[in-house]
Protein backbone atom coordinates (compact mmCIF):
# COMPACT_ATOMS: atom_id res chain seq x y z
CA UNK A 1 0.00 0.00 0.00
CA UNK A 2 1.50 3.32 -1.10
CA UNK A 3 2.10 5.49 1.92
CA UNK A 4 1.79 8.68 -0.06
CA UNK A 5 -1.72 8.26 -1.42
CA UNK A 6 -4.65 9.48 0.62
CA UNK A 7 -7.31 8.58 -1.93
CA UNK A 8 -6.95 5.35 -3.80
CA UNK A 9 -9.70 5.70 -6.40
CA UNK A 10 -11.23 8.37 -8.64
CA UNK A 11 -13.43 11.15 -7.30
CA UNK A 12 -16.52 9.87 -9.09
CA UNK A 13 -16.55 6.86 -6.76
CA UNK A 14 -16.85 9.27 -3.83
CA UNK A 15 -19.68 11.17 -5.52
CA UNK A 16 -21.44 7.92 -6.34
CA UNK A 17 -21.22 6.61 -2.77
CA UNK A 18 -22.37 9.87 -1.23
CA UNK A 19 -25.26 10.09 -3.69
CA UNK A 20 -26.18 6.50 -2.97
CA UNK A 21 -26.17 7.21 0.75
CA UNK A 22 -28.22 10.38 0.36
CA UNK A 23 -30.71 8.38 -1.65
CA UNK A 24 -31.01 5.15 0.27
CA UNK A 25 -30.82 6.32 3.87
CA UNK A 26 -33.91 8.56 3.84
CA UNK A 27 -35.76 5.87 1.90
CA UNK A 28 -34.82 3.29 4.51
CA UNK A 29 -35.88 5.54 7.38
CA UNK A 30 -39.16 6.48 5.76
CA UNK A 31 -39.87 2.90 4.84
CA UNK A 32 -39.31 1.75 8.41
CA UNK A 33 -41.61 4.49 9.69
CA UNK A 34 -44.52 4.00 7.28
CA UNK A 35 -44.37 0.82 5.23
CA UNK A 36 -44.45 -2.41 7.22
CA UNK A 37 -47.05 -3.40 9.74
CA UNK A 38 -46.06 -3.38 13.37
CA UNK A 39 -46.10 -6.17 15.92
CA UNK A 40 -49.30 -5.30 17.76
CA UNK A 41 -48.06 -5.83 21.30
CA UNK A 42 -45.17 -3.42 20.84
CA UNK A 43 -46.94 -0.79 18.80
CA UNK A 44 -45.05 1.93 16.98
CA UNK A 45 -41.89 1.43 19.04
CA UNK A 46 -41.30 -1.80 17.13
CA UNK A 47 -40.19 0.28 14.14
CA UNK A 48 -36.90 1.04 15.90
CA UNK A 49 -36.07 -2.61 15.21
CA UNK A 50 -35.06 -1.71 11.64
CA UNK A 51 -32.50 0.79 12.89
CA UNK A 52 -31.38 -1.12 15.94
CA UNK A 53 -30.64 -4.46 14.32
CA UNK A 54 -28.92 -2.90 11.28
CA UNK A 55 -26.50 -0.86 13.35
CA UNK A 56 -26.00 -3.80 15.72
CA UNK A 57 -24.77 -5.96 12.83
CA UNK A 58 -22.18 -3.36 11.91
CA UNK A 59 -21.22 -2.84 15.54
CA UNK A 60 -20.49 -6.55 15.87
CA UNK A 61 -18.31 -7.15 12.85
CA UNK A 62 -16.49 -3.81 12.79
CA UNK A 63 -14.31 -4.99 15.72
CA UNK A 64 -13.52 -8.12 13.71
CA UNK A 65 -12.25 -5.98 10.83
CA UNK A 66 -10.31 -3.84 13.29
CA UNK A 67 -8.62 -6.90 14.73
CA UNK A 68 -7.88 -8.24 11.26
CA UNK A 69 -6.14 -4.99 10.34
CA UNK A 70 -4.36 -5.13 13.68
CA UNK A 71 -3.11 -8.64 12.97
CA UNK A 72 -1.91 -7.48 9.56
CA UNK A 73 0.02 -4.70 11.29
CA UNK A 74 1.66 -7.22 13.62
CA UNK A 75 2.74 -9.26 10.59
CA UNK A 76 3.61 -6.48 8.13
CA UNK A 77 4.54 -3.63 10.53
CA UNK A 78 3.24 -1.00 8.11
CA UNK A 79 1.54 1.95 9.80
CA UNK A 80 -1.30 2.04 7.27
CA UNK A 81 -2.70 -1.15 8.78
CA UNK A 82 -2.68 0.46 12.20
CA UNK A 83 -4.47 3.50 10.82
CA UNK A 84 -7.08 1.21 9.27
CA UNK A 85 -7.52 -0.66 12.54
CA UNK A 86 -7.84 2.60 14.46
CA UNK A 87 -10.44 4.00 12.04
CA UNK A 88 -12.44 0.79 12.18
CA UNK A 89 -12.38 0.86 16.00
CA UNK A 90 -13.84 4.37 15.91
CA UNK A 91 -16.68 3.10 13.78
CA UNK A 92 -17.19 0.16 16.13
CA UNK A 93 -17.60 2.57 19.00
CA UNK A 94 -19.97 4.88 17.09
CA UNK A 95 -22.25 2.04 16.04
CA UNK A 96 -22.09 0.31 19.43
CA UNK A 97 -23.17 3.53 21.13
CA UNK A 98 -26.04 3.78 18.62
CA UNK A 99 -27.08 0.28 19.67
CA UNK A 100 -26.92 1.18 23.35
CA UNK A 101 -29.11 4.23 22.72
CA UNK A 102 -31.71 2.56 20.55
CA UNK A 103 -31.89 -0.63 22.60
CA UNK A 104 -33.21 0.93 25.83
CA UNK A 105 -35.69 3.05 23.88
CA UNK A 106 -37.14 -0.09 22.36
CA UNK A 107 -36.82 -2.06 25.61
CA UNK A 108 -38.74 0.54 27.61
CA UNK A 109 -41.81 0.21 25.45
CA UNK A 110 -41.47 -3.53 24.82
CA UNK A 111 -40.46 -4.76 28.30
CA UNK A 112 -41.43 -1.84 30.49
CA UNK A 113 -37.83 -1.27 31.56
CA UNK A 114 -34.98 0.37 29.64
CA UNK A 115 -32.37 -2.01 30.97
CA UNK A 116 -32.89 -5.63 31.85
CA UNK A 117 -29.86 -6.94 33.73
CA UNK A 118 -30.80 -10.54 32.94
CA UNK A 119 -30.43 -9.86 29.22
CA UNK A 120 -27.14 -11.36 28.06
CA UNK A 121 -27.01 -9.42 24.80
CA UNK A 122 -27.47 -6.01 26.46
CA UNK A 123 -24.81 -6.73 29.05
CA UNK A 124 -22.32 -8.01 26.51
CA UNK A 125 -22.87 -4.94 24.28
CA UNK A 126 -22.22 -2.76 27.28
CA UNK A 127 -18.97 -4.64 27.92
CA UNK A 128 -18.01 -4.17 24.27
CA UNK A 129 -18.50 -0.41 24.54
CA UNK A 130 -16.44 -0.24 27.73
CA UNK A 131 -13.69 -2.31 26.06
CA UNK A 132 -13.64 0.02 23.08
CA UNK A 133 -13.49 3.06 25.36
CA UNK A 134 -10.52 1.56 27.18
CA UNK A 135 -8.86 0.99 23.77
CA UNK A 136 -9.09 4.71 23.01
CA UNK A 137 -7.96 5.73 26.50
CA UNK A 138 -4.93 3.48 26.07
CA UNK A 139 -4.08 4.90 22.66
CA UNK A 140 -4.29 8.46 23.89
CA UNK A 141 -1.87 7.79 26.76
CA UNK A 142 0.90 5.97 24.94
CA UNK A 143 3.61 8.12 23.45
CA UNK A 144 5.84 5.69 21.54
CA UNK A 145 4.23 5.38 18.10
CA UNK A 146 5.61 1.92 17.35
CA UNK A 147 4.38 0.53 20.63
CA UNK A 148 1.05 2.32 20.27
CA UNK A 149 0.42 0.51 17.01
CA UNK A 150 1.62 -2.86 18.25
CA UNK A 151 -0.26 -2.86 21.53
CA UNK A 152 -3.40 -1.40 19.96
CA UNK A 153 -3.40 -4.35 17.57
CA UNK A 154 -3.48 -6.74 20.50
CA UNK A 155 -6.21 -4.76 22.18
CA UNK A 156 -8.27 -4.80 19.00
CA UNK A 157 -8.09 -8.61 19.08
CA UNK A 158 -9.40 -8.61 22.65
CA UNK A 159 -12.20 -6.21 21.68
CA UNK A 160 -13.08 -8.50 18.77
CA UNK A 161 -13.29 -11.35 21.26
CA UNK A 162 -15.81 -9.33 23.26
CA UNK A 163 -17.74 -8.69 20.04
CA UNK A 164 -17.77 -12.43 19.34
CA UNK A 165 -19.09 -13.08 22.84
CA UNK A 166 -21.78 -10.44 22.26
CA UNK A 167 -22.81 -12.18 19.05
CA UNK A 168 -22.95 -15.49 20.89
CA UNK A 169 -24.72 -14.10 23.94
CA UNK A 170 -28.19 -15.07 22.80
CA UNK A 171 -26.99 -18.35 21.30
CA UNK A 172 -24.67 -19.84 23.91
CA UNK A 173 -26.05 -18.62 27.22
CA UNK A 174 -28.59 -20.89 28.86
CA UNK A 175 -31.01 -18.14 29.87
CA UNK A 176 -30.21 -15.21 27.63
CA UNK A 177 -33.11 -13.11 28.94
CA UNK A 178 -35.82 -11.32 27.02
CA UNK A 179 -33.74 -10.43 24.00
CA UNK A 180 -35.27 -11.67 20.75
CA UNK A 181 -33.38 -14.38 18.91
CA UNK A 182 -31.61 -14.05 15.59
CA UNK A 183 -33.74 -12.70 12.74
CA UNK A 184 -31.89 -14.76 10.12
CA UNK A 185 -33.12 -18.07 8.87
CA UNK A 186 -36.43 -17.86 10.62
CA UNK A 187 -39.69 -17.46 8.83
CA UNK A 188 -41.02 -15.15 11.50
CA UNK A 189 -41.09 -11.90 9.47
CA UNK A 190 -43.82 -10.92 7.06
CA UNK A 191 -42.79 -9.92 3.56
CA UNK A 192 -43.14 -6.16 4.13
CA UNK A 193 -41.04 -6.41 7.27
CA UNK A 194 -38.41 -8.47 5.50
CA UNK A 195 -38.13 -5.98 2.62
CA UNK A 196 -37.87 -3.04 4.99
CA UNK A 197 -35.37 -4.87 7.11
CA UNK A 198 -33.01 -5.69 4.25
CA UNK A 199 -33.21 -2.19 2.79
CA UNK A 200 -32.26 -0.81 6.20
CA UNK A 201 -29.40 -3.28 6.50
CA UNK A 202 -28.13 -2.14 3.10
CA UNK A 203 -28.56 1.55 3.94
CA UNK A 204 -26.66 1.35 7.22
CA UNK A 205 -23.93 -0.70 5.62
CA UNK A 206 -23.49 2.03 3.03
CA UNK A 207 -23.45 4.57 5.86
CA UNK A 208 -20.77 2.45 7.50
CA UNK A 209 -18.73 2.39 4.30
CA UNK A 210 -18.99 6.14 3.73
CA UNK A 211 -18.16 6.94 7.35
CA UNK A 212 -15.21 4.56 7.20
CA UNK A 213 -13.83 6.29 4.12
CA UNK A 214 -14.20 9.72 5.71
CA UNK A 215 -12.72 8.67 9.06
CA UNK A 216 -9.87 6.70 7.49
CA UNK A 217 -8.92 9.62 5.26
CA UNK A 218 -8.94 11.97 8.20
CA UNK A 219 -6.78 9.60 10.27
CA UNK A 220 -4.40 9.11 7.38
CA UNK A 221 -4.08 12.89 6.96
CA UNK A 222 -3.39 13.24 10.68
CA UNK A 223 -0.70 10.58 10.43
CA UNK A 224 0.75 12.28 7.37
CA UNK A 225 0.86 15.60 9.23
CA UNK A 226 2.79 14.03 12.09
CA UNK A 227 5.17 12.42 9.60
CA UNK A 228 5.82 15.69 7.77
CA UNK A 229 6.40 17.53 11.05
CA UNK A 230 8.91 14.93 12.20
CA UNK A 231 10.70 14.88 8.86
CA UNK A 232 11.06 18.64 9.05
CA UNK A 233 12.77 18.46 12.44
Amino acid at each position, binding site marked *: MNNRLIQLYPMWVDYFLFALLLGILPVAVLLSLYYPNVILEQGLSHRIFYFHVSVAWVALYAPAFSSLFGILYIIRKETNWDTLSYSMSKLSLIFSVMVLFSGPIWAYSAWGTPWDWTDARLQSFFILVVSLLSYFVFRSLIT*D*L*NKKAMYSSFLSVLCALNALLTWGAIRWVENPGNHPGSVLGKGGMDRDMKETFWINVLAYHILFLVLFLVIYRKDKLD*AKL*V*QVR*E*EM*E
Partner: protein
Amino acid sequence: MNTSILSCKNLSYTIGYKKIFKNISFEIFASDFTLLTGENGSGKTSLLKLILQSSRKKEFSWDENLLADKERNLISYLGHENGLYSSLSLRENLTFFNRILKHPMPESRINTLLDLFHLTKRLEDPVSTFSEGMKKKSGIIRALLVRPALLLLDEPLNGLDIESTQAFLKVLNTEFADTSILLVAHEIDKISPFVKRRFHIYKGELNHV
Protein backbone atom coordinates in the same frame (compact mmCIF):
# COMPACT_ATOMS: atom_id res chain seq x y z
CA MET B 1 42.82 -9.59 10.62
CA ASN B 2 40.32 -10.47 13.31
CA THR B 3 37.21 -12.36 12.31
CA SER B 4 33.89 -10.61 12.16
CA ILE B 5 31.58 -11.62 14.97
CA LEU B 6 28.64 -9.40 14.11
CA SER B 7 27.72 -7.94 10.80
CA CYS B 8 25.03 -5.32 10.24
CA LYS B 9 23.82 -4.48 6.76
CA ASN B 10 21.45 -1.69 5.75
CA LEU B 11 19.89 -1.07 9.10
CA SER B 12 17.18 1.58 9.14
CA TYR B 13 15.33 2.49 12.25
CA THR B 14 12.42 4.77 12.79
CA ILE B 15 10.78 5.89 16.01
CA GLY B 16 7.28 6.84 14.99
CA TYR B 17 7.92 8.80 11.80
CA LYS B 18 11.34 10.07 12.83
CA LYS B 19 14.19 8.35 11.01
CA ILE B 20 17.00 7.59 13.42
CA PHE B 21 19.20 5.54 11.10
CA LYS B 22 19.25 5.39 7.33
CA ASN B 23 20.76 2.21 5.89
CA ILE B 24 23.76 1.99 8.17
CA SER B 25 26.20 -0.90 7.92
CA PHE B 26 29.05 -1.93 10.16
CA GLU B 27 30.97 -4.89 11.46
CA ILE B 28 32.23 -5.79 14.89
CA PHE B 29 35.40 -7.83 14.94
CA ALA B 30 36.65 -10.22 17.56
CA SER B 31 38.56 -8.58 20.43
CA ASP B 32 37.83 -5.12 19.04
CA PHE B 33 37.44 -2.15 21.36
CA THR B 34 35.16 0.24 19.50
CA LEU B 35 34.11 3.66 20.69
CA LEU B 36 30.71 4.94 19.59
CA THR B 37 30.25 8.69 19.62
CA GLY B 38 27.67 11.17 18.43
CA GLU B 39 25.68 14.17 19.54
CA ASN B 40 22.96 13.89 22.14
CA GLY B 41 19.91 12.35 20.52
CA SER B 42 21.83 10.98 17.54
CA GLY B 43 20.83 7.40 18.27
CA LYS B 44 23.78 5.86 20.15
CA THR B 45 21.61 4.25 22.80
CA SER B 46 19.09 3.18 20.16
CA LEU B 47 21.86 1.43 18.24
CA LEU B 48 22.97 -0.49 21.31
CA LYS B 49 19.37 -1.48 22.04
CA LEU B 50 18.96 -2.65 18.45
CA ILE B 51 22.05 -4.82 18.80
CA LEU B 52 20.42 -6.34 21.89
CA GLN B 53 17.63 -7.52 19.60
CA SER B 54 20.01 -8.61 16.86
CA SER B 55 18.97 -12.25 17.04
CA ARG B 56 15.48 -11.20 15.93
CA LYS B 57 16.45 -8.72 13.23
CA LYS B 58 17.36 -9.78 9.72
CA GLU B 59 19.81 -6.90 9.26
CA PHE B 60 22.17 -8.50 11.76
CA SER B 61 24.10 -11.72 11.37
CA TRP B 62 26.32 -13.29 13.97
CA ASP B 63 29.26 -15.57 13.43
CA GLU B 64 27.88 -19.12 13.19
CA ASN B 65 30.39 -20.51 15.68
CA LEU B 66 29.31 -18.04 18.32
CA LEU B 67 25.66 -18.86 17.78
CA ALA B 68 26.40 -22.55 18.22
CA ASP B 69 28.55 -22.03 21.31
CA LYS B 70 26.60 -23.37 24.26
CA GLU B 71 29.13 -22.13 26.80
CA ARG B 72 29.24 -18.47 25.92
CA ASN B 73 26.56 -15.82 26.04
CA LEU B 74 26.50 -13.53 23.06
CA ILE B 75 25.95 -10.16 24.70
CA SER B 76 26.29 -8.37 27.98
CA TYR B 77 24.81 -4.91 28.33
CA LEU B 78 25.07 -1.96 30.64
CA GLY B 79 22.67 0.86 29.77
CA HIS B 80 21.81 4.13 31.44
CA GLU B 81 19.81 2.12 33.95
CA ASN B 82 21.88 -0.22 36.07
CA GLY B 83 19.79 -3.27 35.19
CA LEU B 84 19.33 -4.45 38.76
CA TYR B 85 16.29 -5.14 40.91
CA SER B 86 16.16 -2.15 43.25
CA SER B 87 14.37 -3.89 46.09
CA LEU B 88 16.73 -6.85 46.15
CA SER B 89 20.14 -6.76 47.78
CA LEU B 90 23.31 -6.62 45.72
CA ARG B 91 24.04 -10.24 46.63
CA GLU B 92 20.59 -11.39 45.53
CA ASN B 93 20.93 -9.50 42.27
CA LEU B 94 24.36 -10.86 41.45
CA THR B 95 23.37 -14.37 42.45
CA PHE B 96 20.34 -14.32 40.19
CA PHE B 97 22.09 -12.84 37.17
CA ASN B 98 25.05 -15.18 37.62
CA ARG B 99 22.83 -18.24 37.79
CA ILE B 100 21.04 -17.52 34.52
CA LEU B 101 24.25 -17.29 32.52
CA LYS B 102 25.47 -20.11 30.34
CA HIS B 103 28.77 -20.11 32.19
CA PRO B 104 28.36 -18.68 35.70
CA MET B 105 31.31 -16.83 37.14
CA PRO B 106 33.01 -18.37 40.21
CA GLU B 107 32.19 -16.68 43.48
CA SER B 108 35.85 -15.86 44.11
CA ARG B 109 35.92 -13.80 40.96
CA ILE B 110 32.74 -11.94 41.96
CA ASN B 111 34.31 -11.17 45.34
CA THR B 112 37.37 -9.79 43.57
CA LEU B 113 35.20 -7.43 41.55
CA LEU B 114 33.31 -6.38 44.66
CA ASP B 115 36.61 -5.57 46.39
CA LEU B 116 37.83 -3.68 43.36
CA PHE B 117 34.79 -1.40 43.40
CA HIS B 118 34.56 -1.24 47.22
CA LEU B 119 31.11 -2.74 47.44
CA THR B 120 31.81 -5.74 49.65
CA LYS B 121 30.43 -4.07 52.75
CA ARG B 122 27.18 -3.21 51.00
CA LEU B 123 26.51 -6.69 49.67
CA GLU B 124 23.45 -7.32 51.84
CA ASP B 125 21.86 -3.88 51.35
CA PRO B 126 19.05 -3.27 48.85
CA VAL B 127 20.28 -1.57 45.70
CA SER B 128 17.66 1.14 46.21
CA THR B 129 19.68 2.44 49.18
CA PHE B 130 22.83 2.98 47.10
CA SER B 131 24.07 6.29 45.82
CA GLU B 132 24.06 6.84 42.04
CA GLY B 133 27.75 6.06 41.79
CA MET B 134 27.36 2.86 43.76
CA LYS B 135 24.42 1.84 41.58
CA LYS B 136 26.58 2.40 38.52
CA LYS B 137 29.38 0.28 39.99
CA SER B 138 26.88 -2.45 40.88
CA GLY B 139 25.59 -2.36 37.30
CA ILE B 140 29.16 -2.65 36.02
CA ILE B 141 29.80 -5.72 38.16
CA ARG B 142 26.56 -7.22 36.91
CA ALA B 143 27.60 -6.58 33.32
CA LEU B 144 31.06 -8.05 33.92
CA LEU B 145 29.70 -11.29 35.39
CA VAL B 146 29.59 -12.74 31.93
CA ARG B 147 32.41 -13.07 29.37
CA PRO B 148 30.32 -12.47 26.30
CA ALA B 149 31.22 -12.31 22.67
CA LEU B 150 30.17 -8.64 22.68
CA LEU B 151 30.07 -6.25 25.62
CA LEU B 152 27.81 -3.23 25.11
CA LEU B 153 28.44 -0.31 27.45
CA ASP B 154 26.38 2.87 27.31
CA GLU B 155 28.20 5.71 29.07
CA PRO B 156 29.56 3.46 31.82
CA LEU B 157 31.85 6.14 33.22
CA ASN B 158 29.03 8.51 34.16
CA GLY B 159 28.97 9.00 37.90
CA LEU B 160 32.10 6.97 38.58
CA ASP B 161 34.85 8.28 40.80
CA ILE B 162 38.43 8.44 39.47
CA GLU B 163 39.59 5.28 41.19
CA SER B 164 36.64 3.25 39.97
CA THR B 165 37.07 4.60 36.45
CA GLN B 166 40.67 3.48 36.37
CA ALA B 167 39.83 0.10 37.87
CA PHE B 168 37.03 -0.41 35.36
CA LEU B 169 39.16 0.48 32.35
CA LYS B 170 41.94 -1.77 33.61
CA VAL B 171 39.55 -4.71 33.92
CA LEU B 172 38.26 -4.09 30.41
CA ASN B 173 41.72 -3.97 28.98
CA THR B 174 43.07 -7.03 30.79
CA GLU B 175 40.35 -9.54 31.61
CA PHE B 176 38.13 -8.63 28.67
CA ALA B 177 40.89 -8.34 26.12
CA ASP B 178 39.42 -11.19 24.07
CA THR B 179 35.90 -9.74 24.23
CA SER B 180 34.62 -7.34 21.62
CA ILE B 181 33.54 -4.12 23.27
CA LEU B 182 31.27 -1.41 21.89
CA LEU B 183 31.32 1.51 24.25
CA VAL B 184 29.46 4.82 24.21
CA ALA B 185 31.29 7.58 26.01
CA HIS B 186 31.89 11.30 25.85
CA GLU B 187 35.15 11.15 27.85
CA ILE B 188 37.28 10.36 24.84
CA ASP B 189 40.56 11.29 26.52
CA LYS B 190 40.12 8.58 29.16
CA ILE B 191 39.10 5.91 26.67
CA SER B 192 41.38 6.67 23.72
CA PRO B 193 44.41 4.63 24.89
CA PHE B 194 42.28 1.51 24.67
CA VAL B 195 40.23 2.23 21.56
CA LYS B 196 41.06 0.45 18.31
CA ARG B 197 38.18 1.82 16.22
CA ARG B 198 35.62 4.55 16.41
CA PHE B 199 32.12 4.90 15.00
CA HIS B 200 30.50 8.28 14.83
CA ILE B 201 26.75 8.76 14.28
CA TYR B 202 25.76 11.95 12.54
CA LYS B 203 22.39 12.74 11.01
CA GLY B 204 21.33 9.13 10.84
CA GLU B 205 24.53 7.86 9.27
CA LEU B 206 27.28 5.86 10.85
CA ASN B 207 30.81 6.85 9.92
CA HIS B 208 33.95 4.87 10.60
CA VAL B 209 36.42 7.41 11.98
